[in-house]
């Protein structure tokens, strides 16, 4: 199969966790696609499989069954080592709890992916990205000196430095008050306009409904 159109193309995505002797289907044959420039929201109750889906398409975990393309690369059969490469080149993660490193400044946090990719030559770009996500000159502040909205901006800046094609955001506004929430969503909109594919898993139906498309999960399956 060729996948020219989609940033992600997945068919029959299934992830089974072993719970003692029981099999737990966190994802059960989910079909999923997203195109560049599109924002897709994933909603559903806690435990329905949102995070698992993001982890699958983010190549953080391997599928039990199904076929998955990231761009033109089929990743469903790749080894851990190659998955890291695909991840590094294509995907940026944003988490509910930001997960910034408290001892590093905003700038250093955003720089980390370049360190791992051995691309520190591109570090000038970080300042540009800071402008873009609205952090301006707050380069040398520690995460603890900033509010939640700004911390999430650092996390987004960090997700952007490797110039990914896809942003995966797991409940990115779950810990933010409504004003920051709006701004962060606005930022995602802006990034989508630049051609990034953005997937947001969220509890917040109001926010989810403003995505280009909304996918509802229940017990690891898509419901319409």
């Amino acid at each position, binding site marked *: 199969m060729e996948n020219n159109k989609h940033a992600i193309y997945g068919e029959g995505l299934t992830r089974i966790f072993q719970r003692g002797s029981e099999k737990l289907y966190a994802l059960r044959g989910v079909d999923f696609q997203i195109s560049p420039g599109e924002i897709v929201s994933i909603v559903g109750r806690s435990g329905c499989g949102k*995070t698992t889906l993001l*982890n699958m398409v*983010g190549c*953080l*975990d391997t599928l039990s069954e199904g076929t998955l393309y990231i761009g033109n690369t089929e990743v469903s059969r790749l080894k851990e*080592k190659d998955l*890291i490469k695909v*991840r*590094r080149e294509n995907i940026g*993660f944003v*988490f*509910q*709890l930001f*997960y910034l*490193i*408290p*001892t*590093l400044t905003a700038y*250093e946090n955003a*720089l*980390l*992916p370049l*360190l*791992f*990719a051995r691309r520190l030559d591109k570090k000038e770009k970080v300042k540009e990205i800071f402008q873009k996500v609205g952090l301006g000159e707050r380069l040398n502040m520690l995460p603890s000196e900033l509010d939640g909205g700004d911390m999430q901006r650092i996390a987004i800046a*960090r*997700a952007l430095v*490797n110039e990914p094609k896809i942003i995966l955001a797991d409940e990115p506004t779950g810990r933010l008050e409504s004003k920051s929430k709006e701004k962060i969503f606005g930022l995602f909109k802006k990034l989508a306009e630049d051609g990034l594919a953005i997937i947001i898993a969220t509890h917040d139906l109001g926010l989810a409904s403003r995505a280009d498309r909304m996918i509802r999960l229940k017990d690891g399956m898509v419901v319409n």
Partner: protein
Amino acid sequence: MKFILFALKNLLRNKIRTLLTVLSIAVSVTVLFSLLSFTKGYEKGMTSELGKMGYQIMIVPRGCPYEAASLALSGGKIPNYFDYSVLEEVKKIPEVEIAAPFFMSAIIRPDEDRTDIYFGMDENMFQMKKYWNIKGSYFKDENSLIMGGDAAYIEQTDEPGQKFYVREKDREFVVTGILERTGTKDDGFFFIPLKAAQEMFGQKDRVTGIAIRVKDPTLIPTVVEQLEKLPDSQVITMSQLMGTMMNLVAQAKTLILSIIIIAIIISALGALNTVLMSVFERTKEIGVMRAMGAGREHVFQLVWVETLVMALISGILGIGIALIGMGLVEKIIKKLLPLAPQGSVVSFDPNTLLICLGFVILVGLVAGIYPAYRASKLKPIEAIRTE
């Protein structure tokens, strides 16, 4: 920003914990460095002291080697004597260049807590002490006395010509010379003519030992072989003597070294524990790093570098403390050691520094492997899971 800086910042997160770990490694390194410096210095001190003696062989009446050794180095009362017939025998050996008889004895004054060592000698011994710098002159008559540098200091004698009275023996000497300090035991002695010593201690025509200089150091074994045939005598070569001393020191060193090794292993385990705890505390961060494109090797490297940096800081600190405390160690060791050479027993040696640094790096590398391995094995999805 480099990996190493990142590692350093991680270490600073829990400053107290890191500090305690660093201190425990540093203390071990301090002791290790001091011990190694001491052994080096001791060897040097002994070699130079023995080299200055001017003779390679000594014979003394039979006794245990330790006694003989202590006699040669520290001086003291020797209970057994030779008569001159032995000296004649020694002089017959063709390879002997000089045979210098001496008579050594001590006067102890318990009330003053002092022991004065009288060393009776003749021109032959003086020949061997060519390196002596005497203020004044060699013996002029039977009542002459030469004071070692320290002895003169204690007696507050700074000019030759002063009188010196030995009240125990009701004997008066005139100081003809004062020795400049030599850095050997000579500094503490009172040198008097051989005959005067024999008389003063009531042992006419007897000697407590004979110092022998051989014409050529390669002839030492030949001479030793012939000397060993003499009855009731014991032959000590200076190299042997040094060997005995060094053996004693080596035994003590082995013991201390094993204690240090255990201390280091314990502190290495402490380092391992510290880093492992910090890995567990950072599970989520490590998961996120993996999500951001860090490979297993990056995580491994990071944790390993952290341990290594911690070990290196400890090592540098430990060596620093040892260097600052060198003078103190010197004093303590000299107090404890019965046969310390007069010169410095602790010496700085770049090799010792390298050994200690190398050792501490090894500790860091080894202690870091397990935590680094554990960290690199963390699965990103498990690490990041919130529930």
